[in-house]
């Protein structure tokens, strides 16, 4: 039986989790009608319900998240659900605790990171990036090539140039030549791309706020947001793809400079 901790009084916010039919579940142990990850009345852990990560934390699908509140909620839920607290409980409760806690950790990990959070929301809204589609996964699996993302159009020239420079650096390494001018150029390019990354992160935050506004409008009864949401999602998807590409490039440059 899970033991009550002193932090109990802080987590009466146990959110209501819907079961498959959309009805509120009731506690298997005491029958209390308001069941959630754990029963508010008797404390027993409940079966894990397939829920998206936002609902798991009782959050709306908005992209701005208060990270310290999220962390607090994660700690509170861990204190109630963690397998360490169920080693003397029934096997069924142990299984539920394991499922609930892994869902908790998966949700927290995803929502905490800005890029992962955005990507996840896009999947929920039906927008998968090219890399993520099952088709792409299967192609990668059967062709032996890693999943590719296309080069962002506006970066074509710069990418071409840096690839040439990296190639040259690589050749120099083989012949043990040191071209200081080349190294300096590559370092400059690295700074430039890192700056681009930061700029993209700023852009993303702007799009977030736009998205959150749309959600607020939907919540207050505006039913005409579908098209705007679609447009915004496509913008965010494009931005994420470009961000991923540049991130990969920065890593490549960093590896090349290090060795």
């Amino acid at each position, binding site marked *: 039986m899970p*033991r009550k*901790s*002193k*932090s109990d009084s802080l987590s009466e916010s146990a959110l209501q989790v819907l079961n498959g039919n959309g009805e509120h579940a009731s506690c298997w142990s005491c029958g209390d009608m308001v069941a959630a990850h754990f029963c508010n009345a008797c404390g027993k852990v409940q079966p894990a319900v397939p829920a998206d990560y936002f609902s798991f934390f009782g959050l709306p699908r908005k992209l701005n998240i208060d990270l310290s509140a999220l962390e607090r909620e994660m*700690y509170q839920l*861990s*204190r109630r659900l*963690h*397998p*360490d*607290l169920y*080693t*003397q409980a029934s096997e069924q409760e142990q299984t539920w605790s*394991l499922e609930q*806690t*892994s*869902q908790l*950790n*998966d949700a*927290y*990990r995803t929502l905490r990171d800005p890029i992962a959070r955005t990507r996840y929301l896009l999947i929920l809204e039906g927008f998968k990036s090219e890399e993520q589609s*099952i088709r792409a*996964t*299967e192609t*990668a*699996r*059967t*062709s*032996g*090539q*890693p999943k590719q993302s296309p080069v962002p159009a506006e970066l074509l020239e710069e990418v071409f140039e840096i690839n040439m420079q990296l190639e040259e650096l690589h050749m120099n390494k083989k012949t043990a030549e040191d071209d200081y001018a080349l190294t300096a150029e590559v370092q400059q390019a690295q700074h430039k791309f890192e700056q681009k990354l930061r700029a993209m992160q700023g852009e993303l935050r702007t799009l977030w706020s736009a998205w959150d506004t749309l959600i607020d409008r939907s919540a207050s009864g505006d039913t005409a947001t579908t098209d705007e949401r679609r447009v915004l999602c496509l913008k965010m998807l494009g931005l994420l793809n470009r961000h991923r590409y540049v991130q990969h490039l920065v890593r490549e440059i960093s590896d090349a400079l290090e060795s």
Partner: protein
Amino acid sequence: MDQSRVVGIDLGTTNSLVAYMEGDRPVIIPGEDGANLVPSLVAIDPDGKVIVGNAARKHLIETPDRAVYSVKRLMGRGIDDVQNELKLFPFHLADDLLPGEVLRIKLGEHTYSPPEISAFILRQLKRNAERYFGAPVTKAVITVPAYFNDAQRQATKDAGRIAGLDVLRLVNEPTAASLAYGLDKKTNATIAVYDFGGGTFDISILKLHEGIFEVIATNGDTHLGGDDIDNLMIAVALDDIQGEFGFDLRRSSEAVQAIRKAVIDAKIALSTQPHAVLDFDLPDGKRYQRTIPRELFEQFIEPIIKRTIGPCNQALADAGLKPSEIDEVVLVGGSTRTPRVRQLVRDLFQREPHYGLNPDEVVALGAAVQANILSGASDATKDMLLLDVTPLSLGIENLGGVVAKIIHRNSTIPASATEYFTTGVEGQANVAIHVLQGEREMAKDCRSLARFELRGIPPMPAGQPRIAVKFLIDANGILHVSAREQRSGKQAEIEVQPSYGLTDEQVETMILESFDYAEQDFAERQVVEARNEAETIRAALEKGRNSAAWEKLTSDERTKIAKLEAALNAVKPGTDYQAIRGAIDALNQGTMRLAELMMDDAVSSALKGRTFDQASRKLGEGPEAPHPFAKAEIK
């Protein structure tokens, strides 16, 4: 107590310990010899008896082919992995090992796998705890290096099962140490645990907050420890001897073990003294003596110690922290006693490390704290919770040998990921998945965990099935896989072939075999218990002789008692349980009247018919110990 106790066990490379929570403090349970540390040494004597700990030391020196140490370095590993290690150790692999088979080591006439050998050590610790409590112990928390992979963890769990323990949780060693450290701190802080032991190195960075111990990042090297320092110094000594005296002692296991002992003694001395002497007898009667100044020793070991820097920097990078953002550094493991190591830690983290806790005991104490969190036996840990991480990324191999990571390193566990698979051929019923751990891009550079075969996929055109495979890493850091074909809703069967582990059937067989050892244990225990009872009677008889009741016996009765006592003293040191038992019963019978007389003197006639030692206890002077090894309870 309605719940059986859960103990905490540090199954170390060099030493093992068992501990439990006594009230609000964790306490180490000593062995029969009173020592807290049980050396992780196992020997088999010529009679086939298993000897563990200090008693095995002389066997290691005299008959190295019948003894093994540092078996932890072989857990969860394959033949290819250990070739280099084995060059430095005196033990040999079984002759008939097939490639892909679990390792077996020759110990005397038989061979044993590393989990079986570890189980001997665990069984000894279990016995020590049972002796201490006077009650069975079946549940334990066992610690493992944070950087242990899935196979190494599974091997540890298997060892627990073979030893008759229900392993409730595997805990990472640095995390356990932080529990012991943070128990009475009640602070919110960011700490780094630098754990440099006999065989493994771990660095973990944790956030302590309101009783929650959250690991942020962990890194390490499971083949880096004090043993490497010892092996280096042994090589130095061997070369020196060869150079000076002309003979190569590498071939002689006995000589190498003697050198090893000398090297370890010197290493330990150098932690507190500026010089030490390597001193031992050579085979031809000559004596080898070499003074080693600390500076020279430090020069030799510098490359080994430097290997701890990389993992520390990686862990800090993964945590997104600079050394200045760490509040405290805690040192764990015997190798952190080396002054050069402390200096390295000081330089790396730019602060004085904390070494107030005994580096040999802190992990076991922490394991006891975790055992208490799991069992709830004492309230001292009621607001504490450990949130640990998986140390290595989990990936799947794709065609072309490229690894796709599905759960990244330092993800808080339990953690899961779902991947979707389909078939390539019409009617294909099975899909094979190769799962690996590691950070590299290519499968050949990562650690193979297991091959899974999903079976029973309903026949469908190629590419139609949609199989959702869920990979779940549990709170022990061990992987579980489940699969469901989504179109049919059918649960797929999964056949697991662990790359470096025992199958369930093999473990079951070993558990059965271990009952034979349990019987050996049981017989031994009976003798020990009988001897204890004999000792109690002796003490009681002593009291009886000094009592007024003794005078009331006839001289015949007194002579008879003396004879029975002599008979018991004759058989007591032996191992014949029946004989000791018989002599005890006879003496009890013979002293029954004395007991009654003593009772009469104490007034209560209702106690007639009790045995002598019961009667003398009633007269007693002070608290009654429930059994010989527990502290007397003052009621």
